[in-house]
């Protein structure tokens, strides 16, 4: 047989030729940072779910929206609340008044007016629009009733006195209302433009209009999104970056990390922080790592529904007396920067004059095996059982959650002889079980919606839908009502200090840790802002240095 036609040498030659061609091919790809153009590239886990500020909910949408739109107030480079579209404001009791600046413009050159706020806020609570975050608008008068379809949209407590003056009436004094106005659902939306899009507002680039520091100029769904500096923004002088490009969208954290190593990204995982494996890689390669609290507090929540043994205070106290959050954080989780949990209220929250946790120190439960066993005996007597029945601990399917669940399983077996089953579930199935109360213990956490301890405090009010264990205590509820009924900071914070003590003394939850996000950043990119509420990373005031 003639084998000349299939000579391996010929194949090799062709292959080598191809390889040479590849090397000779000019490299066209952009780099992560570009000093001359003041351009940066970032990667995202996927597509923003909905960029319509009225209905947006997810972190990706929040990230882009905070760059392209602006509310009455905004966060400056030092993470302080300052005037955005509003130039000055007055707030007293349930009344607020905002004076808008005359040079705040939409990207088509028309001014941002008070009517744009009235229209947007009404749409947020419009039952037909069905905005998931409508409840964040509830502090405004009649918002809840309108959202339930019991009142017309016009009844909402917001009014444009003239083009540049906005008057707001609140349901009750709300200490944190000003901070809320920087949140996306409070952003302005111009009625004529919105209606002209026929339900496709912000669905594609041609359906968008901006009043923030940047504008979206290109969006290929699921693939890339490009923001460029908005020249009509009133404070454009304080913005240095010209381009923030997102050329990569993938849920694969390793792929994004490889892109960063290849010099294609200016910063990697600014929204969520690196996964443990990538963090180890970054440490091993001596990369510049930026750590910041991402705002989320994690804890073990008990099921307090009737019929559940975890409703018994002595049983919970027994578990509390053997659990050391330091051991969990330092020996089990082992990610640098995580803070052992002590309280529902995280360390960065502000109190009256200082940090909340400094003004209101958390009572420290004693670690005492002897006492724990006494509590367990009491629990058995109260419950009328010889042995505590096997308990289920519900958690998600990520490695870090399963590891913790196994830690609790071993801990409570070793110290208290309790039998615990680890119930690890995928996302939707876990939500279903937690909503229906199919658990005894659940590993869960909470990130703040706004900058006030109340975003954590009201979690355990008996009426809160996010009270997964259905904890119900008239005492706790009264603390929440006290804090919600006044704008006097001292009274509010005192009430929340009492909530903090109550949660520990009654062992309502076992705080496990406060999370830290670790981010790798190109050293030439400076001025990136990380925060705990809203978008976790903001590049508005960032710049590229040589």
């Amino acid at each position, binding site marked *: 047989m003639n084998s000349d036609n299939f000579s391996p040498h010929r194949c090799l030659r062709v292959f080598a030729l191809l390889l040479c061609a590849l090397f000779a091919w000019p490299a066209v790809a952009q780099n992560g940072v570009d000093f001359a153009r003041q351009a940066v590239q970032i990667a995202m886990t996927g597509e923003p779910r909905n960029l319509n500020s009225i209905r947006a909910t997810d972190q990706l949408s929040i990230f882009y929206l905070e760059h392209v739109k602006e509310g009455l107030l905004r966060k400056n480079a030092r993470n302080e609340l300052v005037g955005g579209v509003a130039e000055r404001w007055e707030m007293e009791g349930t009344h607020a008044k905002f004076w808008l600046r005359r040079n705040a413009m939409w990207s088509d050159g028309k001014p941002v007016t008070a009517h744009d706020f009235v229209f947007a806020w009404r749409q947020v609570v419009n039952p037909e629009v069905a905005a998931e975050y409508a409840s964040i608008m509830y502090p405004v008068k009649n918002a809840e009733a309108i959202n339930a379809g019991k009142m017309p949209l016009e009844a909402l407590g917001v009014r444009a006195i003239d083009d540049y003056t906005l008057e707001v009436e609140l349901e009750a004094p709300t200490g944190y209302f000003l901070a809320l106005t920087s949140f996306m659902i409070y952003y302005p939306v111009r009625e004529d433009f919105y209606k002209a899009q026929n339900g496709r507002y912000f669905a594609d680039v041609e359906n968008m209009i901006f009043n923030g520091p940047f504008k979206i100029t290109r969006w290929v769904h699921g693939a890339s999104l490009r923001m460029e500096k908005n020249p009509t923004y009133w404070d454009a002088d304080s913005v240095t970056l010209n381009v923030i490009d997102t050329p990569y969208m993938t849920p694969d954290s390793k792929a994004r990390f490889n892109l960063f190593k290849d010099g294609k990204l200016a910063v990697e995982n600014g929204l969520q922080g690196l996964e443990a494996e990538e963090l180890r890689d970054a440490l091993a390669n001596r990369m510049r790592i930026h750590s910041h609290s991402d705002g989320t507090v994690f804890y073990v929540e008990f099921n307090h529904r009737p019929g559940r043994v975890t409703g018994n205070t002595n049983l919970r106290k027994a578990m509390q007396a053997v659990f050391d959050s330091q051991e969990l954080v330092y020996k089990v989780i082992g990610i640098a920067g995580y803070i052992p949990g002590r309280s529902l209220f995280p360390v960065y929250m502000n109190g009256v004059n200082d940090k909340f946790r400094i003004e209101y120190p958390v009572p420290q439960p004693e670690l005492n095996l002897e006492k724990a066993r006494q509590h367990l005996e009491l629990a058995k007597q109260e419950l009328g059982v010889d042995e505590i029945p096997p308990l289920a601990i519900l958690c998600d399917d990520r490695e870090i959650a399963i590891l913790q669940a196994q830690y609790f399983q071993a801990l409570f077996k070793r110290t208290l002889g309790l039998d615990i089953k680890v119930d690890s579930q995928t996302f939707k*199935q876990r939500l279903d079980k937690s909503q229906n109360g199919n658990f005894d213990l659940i590993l869960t956490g909470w990130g703040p919606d706004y900058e006030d301890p109340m975003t954590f405090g009201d979690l355990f009010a008996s009426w809160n839908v996010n009270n997964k264990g259905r904890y119900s205590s008239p005492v706790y509820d009264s603390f929440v009502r006290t804090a919600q009924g006044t704008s006097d900071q001292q009274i509010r914070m005192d009430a929340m200090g009492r909530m903090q003590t109550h949660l520990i003394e009654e062992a309502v939850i076992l705080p496990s840790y406060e999370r830290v996000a670790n981010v790798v950043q190109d050293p030439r990119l400076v001025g990136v802002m990380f925060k705990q509420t809203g978008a976790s990373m903001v590049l508005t005031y960032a710049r590229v240095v040589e």
Partner: protein
Amino acid sequence: MLSYILKRLGIGVFTIWFIATATFTAMHMVPGDPLSNERGTNEIIRANLERQYGLDKPVFQQYLLYMGNMLKGDFGIAFSEENRSVNDIIREHFPVSATLGLLSLLFATAGGVLWGALAALYRNRLPDAVLMFLVILGISVPSFVFAALSQLLILNLNQWAGRSILPVAGWGDFRSMLVPALVLGMSTMAFMTRLMRSSMLEVANTDYIRTARAKGLSPTRIFFRHQLRNAILPVITVLGPAIAIITTGGFVVESVFAIPGLGRYFVQAVAQLDYTVIMGTTVFFGAFLVLVVIAVDILYGFIDPRIRLGAV
């Protein structure tokens, strides 16, 4: 011929209906729902959302409504990307998956036929042994391992060269498609190599090859005209399912290389319990598979004169 095609199409339509119904039932039986989220919503908001998505209606009514819309070619609005219809998602992302899939199929078929023929040619000698070892590797190593390894390789190559020779990830020019297509086609290529090798060996022992040799035909002519052409038939048979698997099964590769294909939506929708996207992609892929299989069967009649379609 025509009646055969019509009959096959009829069965195809039934298959698609069955896929749609089974998926709809299974999807609604899974605990959880598309509207649930880490942050719970109060009853008012929940009711508003359910009304907007039509989830407040009885399940059977939802089924009829969905089937009715599907017949009109409307797959509905995605839960996970609220401003986009499932039709848009399929229209924008399937071409990406298809491009990647066809390219990798090209690699797989060309490679498979080439390596298979080569292995048969060097039967029981060193090149054959090496190729068969690689084949085992190609079949048994899952694509996510190949994908991650090749990405690491590109990264090291770029760092060694001091510039971007191949993109680590992303989608755009031919260069960015090269490695993902190779990785995606790897197992199919390995499978086809094996198939081609055994098929070549089988054909080599047939009477007509011996006759051709006896007639004094040149070895090259025998190899191409008689042996290769006959041996390639089984490869065509697996081509049908392979097209479907490759153009739809690229989730991992799409994820690792940040490629905006449909596979990603297909898999993420299940985790998110995104009813409309699950239905849309499943029915679309189902229909695609059915069509490809029918097309391959018809193609068979043209390639192999022994198969007469009318007789089925």
